[in-house]
């Protein structure tokens, strides 16, 4: 499978080439950190070193005295609302009286050299009085409030069926997941240029231009049309760019100095300066009949939201509503809530709310299978969702739900040959630095299934807008959908070619001017939503084109179609190239695409809150060094419910990339917090999988059952790969070690230093006779 490099070709279903590919491989693609303007200054943020403190005063005089420093700003310089937030503005642009997390911005500097800006930032004297940070999410709800809005960010209860129902077999557990960082390769960066009209132009990497614009305008006290956002190249996102980072601060610096201001976060600042995945503590109790059918699921899920709200509401909703996973559960008692602590704010990251829940519900399914003496795959199949089943929220699955197929196809391929006894030295856990005995390495296999809601829900209309303009046989698409690397730009061209039969499709730059919102590049939604808007705009242009030909040539409109780039009638009477068919006319149409309406959940968590769901399964094979606690993931097999494949190569990229982030959370990635202090804000100390850590991914099946309501039949594919891969890898480590391992990531000490009693049944040492050569 490979891509034809001609960027003028490729319709739906084909591996079309990325329009931004050539500049990206040549190093010529302009990321937000590559922006430049004449006479630009460099901005730098001053951040709190304390997770909790009161501020008695800020002395900027020494910073201002440094030659080359052009401005220092604090909360006093924010002309409008001094707070912002995606759901509710509870987060200060600059902390003014209280600091609530380590890394919270307190001031910002602009200077004519980045080093001068750094030194000026260090010269600002903030008079902090450190206070005891609130760091335990289990007590946060009842602790003295650390914010005027209290410590409970959002709470969702879900009650289904009979709360007192019981099953013959009951298993329970307490599970935890760590705080994962998106670790997108491009750190936050932007360039703000003051306008002559008193407004500002901001070139920024973000995920949703129009929602940034709204929040910024309120803080800058400017009308919307004076806050003009232009999408700069985005070096990955994964949720990190959903919230504002530097947007307000660099615009203020630019407006204050009257000069362009560029700011680029260091990696350390990036770790401190964007939201993370919520750590979770989850208690689960599953009841089942002896035949394995689930009777009831009880769950209590605490999510550590950190200092501010961000998108905690949606994270709580996902975790609560899909707490049992993709299984039929007649009775449920679930409570999920996010609490405020003095940890870094947590918000969206790929698979939000469900990566956490899946880790727990899949561990529970394995426990239940063991208690029943049943094959864990069989147990999952027995309970797997089908179309027509209901979530615990009462919402009936009306779309496709090929969970059974996903499980079957993922579980059936043969396991990889070989084993620790014959594996090459470099491929054993720990690689070249391995120091332990090969005989103490065990292989394990784990399996997990997960689900993800697509698009926003809970009554929110996250529509998208697109424009198509057809002129001289060239289609120009305007849409504010953010390309974060996922390949929406490729898909937009494929759609236009498919509908209009043109080969040349130009993508206008994405920005807030002259086009409505496209919604966020998150929640696996742009293929469906902005793809739907582009398709609708192209179809409207196509209709006008064919109507125009029909009128001009007096041919029945319904006989005309576009085939191979030409307008034709079946009798051959009409055969025109697209530009001839338009006959000099410029056709332009703008369309909004809205998904089916959803509703807010009621107090018992009942209601049709979601639009659609996608499902995936993962099987992991691992080798574990029992003495060193090191894990090598040997192979991942996956099947995914994708609705329809629109671009095979890009789809594979989403699956492999999501799995890599799942492997990361399973065995290595977590922000280390010590009394509210972030201890590992660097790629030296927060490690993400390298090419040596990442196993081959075997895609067993892409299940193509076109989804009703999806404009092209496709389901968003970005998040499911991240959800059950974490659970599968940890299940495989449990299989290899016999340990309970209730926490992700699994650390070496969780294995190597496990108390002997917690190791009930280590796998026997493999012998050479068991291993095929």
């Amino acid at each position, binding site marked *: 499978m490979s891509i034809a490099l001609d960027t003028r070709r490729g319709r739906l279903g084909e591996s079309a080439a990325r329009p931004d590919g050539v500049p990206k*491989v040549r190093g010529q693609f302009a990321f937000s950190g590559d922006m430049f303007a004449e006479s630009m200054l460099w901005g730098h943020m001053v951040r709190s070193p304390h997770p909790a403190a009161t501020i008695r005063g800020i002395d900027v005089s020494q910073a201002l005295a440094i030659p*080359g420093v052009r401005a220092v700003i604090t909360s006093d310089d924010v002309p409008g609302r001094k707070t912002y937030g995606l759901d509710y503005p509870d987060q200060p642009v600059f902390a003014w009286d209280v600091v609530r997390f380590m890394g919270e911005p307190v001031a910002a500097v602009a200077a004519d050299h980045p080093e001068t800006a750094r030194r000026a930032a260090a010269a600002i004297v903030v008079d902090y009085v450190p206070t005891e940070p609130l760091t335990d999410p289990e007590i946060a709800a009842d602790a003295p409030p650390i914010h005027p809005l209290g410590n409970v960010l959002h709470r969702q209860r879900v009650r289904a069926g009979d709360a007192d129902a019981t099953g013959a077999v009951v298993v329970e557990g307490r599970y935890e997941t760590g705080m994962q960082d998106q670790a997108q390769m491009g*750190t936050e960066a932007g360039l703000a240029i003051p306008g002559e009209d008193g407004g500002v132009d901001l070139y920024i990497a973000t995920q949703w231009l129009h929602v940034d614009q709204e929040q910024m305008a309120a803080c800058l006290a400017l009308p919307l049309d004076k806050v003009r956002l232009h999408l700069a190249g985005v070096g990955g996102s994964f949720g990190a760019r959903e919230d504002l980072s530097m947007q307000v601060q660099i615009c203020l610096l630019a407006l204050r100095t009257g000069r362009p201001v560029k700011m680029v976060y260091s*990696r350390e600042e990036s770790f401190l300066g964007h939201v993370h995945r919520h750590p979770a503590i989850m208690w689960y109790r599953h009841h089942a009949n002896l035949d394995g059918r689930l009777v009831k699921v009880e769950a209590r899920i605490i999510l550590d939201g950190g200092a501010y709200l961000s998108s905690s509401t949606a994270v709580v909703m996902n975790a609560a509503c899909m707490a049992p996973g993709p299984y039929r559960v007649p009775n449920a008692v679930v409570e999920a809530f996010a609490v405020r602590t003095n940890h870094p704010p947590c918000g969206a990251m790929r698979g939000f709310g469900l990566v956490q829940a899946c880790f727990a519900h899949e561990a529970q399914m394995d426990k239940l299978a063991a208690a029943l003496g049943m094959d864990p795959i069989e147990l999952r199949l027995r309970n797997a969702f089908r179309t027509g089943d209901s979530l615990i929220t009462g919402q009936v699955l009306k779309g496709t739900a090929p969970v059974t197929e996903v499980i079957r196809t993922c579980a059936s391929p043969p396991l990889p040959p070989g084993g620790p006894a014959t594996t090459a030295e470099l491929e054993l856990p720990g690689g070249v630095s391995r120091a332990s005995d090969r005989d103490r390495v065990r292989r394990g296999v784990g399996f997990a299934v997960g689900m993800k809601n697509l698009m926003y829900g809970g009554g929110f209309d996250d529509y998208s807008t697109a424009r198509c303009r057809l002129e001289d046989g060239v289609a120009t698409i305007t849409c504010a959908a953010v390309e974060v690397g996922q*390949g929406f730009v490729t898909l937009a061209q494929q759609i236009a070619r498919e509908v209009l039969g043109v080969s040349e499709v130009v993508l206008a730059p994405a920005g807030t001017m002259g086009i409505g919102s496209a919604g966020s590049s998150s929640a696996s939604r742009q293929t469906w939503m902005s793809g739907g808007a582009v398709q609708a705009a192209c179809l409207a242009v196509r209709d006008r084109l064919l109507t125009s030909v029909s009128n001009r040539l007096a041919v029945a409109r319904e006989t005309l179609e576009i085939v191979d780039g030409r307008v034709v009638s079946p009798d051959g009477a009409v055969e025109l190239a697209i530009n001839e068919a338009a006959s000099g006319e410029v056709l332009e149409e703008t369309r909004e695409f809205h998904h089916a309406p959803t509703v807010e959940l009621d107090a018992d968590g009942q209601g049709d809150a979601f639009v659609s769901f996608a499902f995936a399964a993962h099987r992991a094979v691992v080798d574990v060094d029992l003495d060193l606690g090191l894990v090598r993931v040997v192979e991942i097999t996956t099947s995914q419910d994708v609705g329809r494949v629109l671009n095979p190569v890009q789809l594979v990229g989403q699956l492999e990339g999501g799995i890599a982030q799942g492997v990361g959370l399973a065995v290595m990635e977590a922000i280390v917090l010590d009394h509210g202090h972030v201890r590992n804000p660097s790629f030296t100390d927060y490690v993400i999988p390298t090419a040596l850590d990442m196993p081959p991914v075997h895609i067993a099946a892409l299940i193509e059952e076109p989804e009703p309501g999806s404009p092209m039949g496709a389901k968003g594919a970005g998040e499911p790969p991240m959800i059950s891969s974490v659970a599968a890898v940890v299940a495989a480590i449990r299989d290899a070690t016999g340990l309970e391992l209730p926490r992700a990531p699994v650390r070496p000490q969780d294995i190597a230093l496990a108390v002997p009693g917690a190791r009930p049944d280590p796998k026997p040492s493999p012998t050479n006779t068991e291993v095929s050569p």
Partner: protein
Amino acid sequence: MGELIDYRLRVNGRERDVAGAWPGESLLYVLRERLDLPGSKNACEQGECGSCSVLMDGKLVCACLVLAASAVGAEIVTVEGLSAGDDDLTDIQAALLAEGGVQCGFCTPGFVVSVHDLLEHNPDPTELEVREAVSGNLCRCTGYGRILAAVRAVQETRQG
């Protein structure tokens, strides 16, 4: 910032003057901000991610860890200097596109340089050798699968 200095670097076969620079500037900063060569990316500034990979006298280095003023006299090649001309792609660049090895693209220039270096020194590496060689280049989008496929494709084409 104290004394500013002038020096001359040799980059992609051309002599480039650097004037009035703070001596603490890294090679990465000077390439990006003074010499208009932003292809080398900054993702960690501590030699962990490989996004700023360049060749210095034929050796693969992280430009963020090299003091620019100490690179005087060295032959520096950046991603911008690998392909022959503006319409030209190296076989490695073309394969990264053809195999789907590019998503956000931030790590891509670093991979282009490090794969170039690998295949210069080891024209027919095993898959494990490839993984080891590019393990100093972090990618967060692809999971490396398509990047490794691209390296394989280049190897196969070069072997004929």
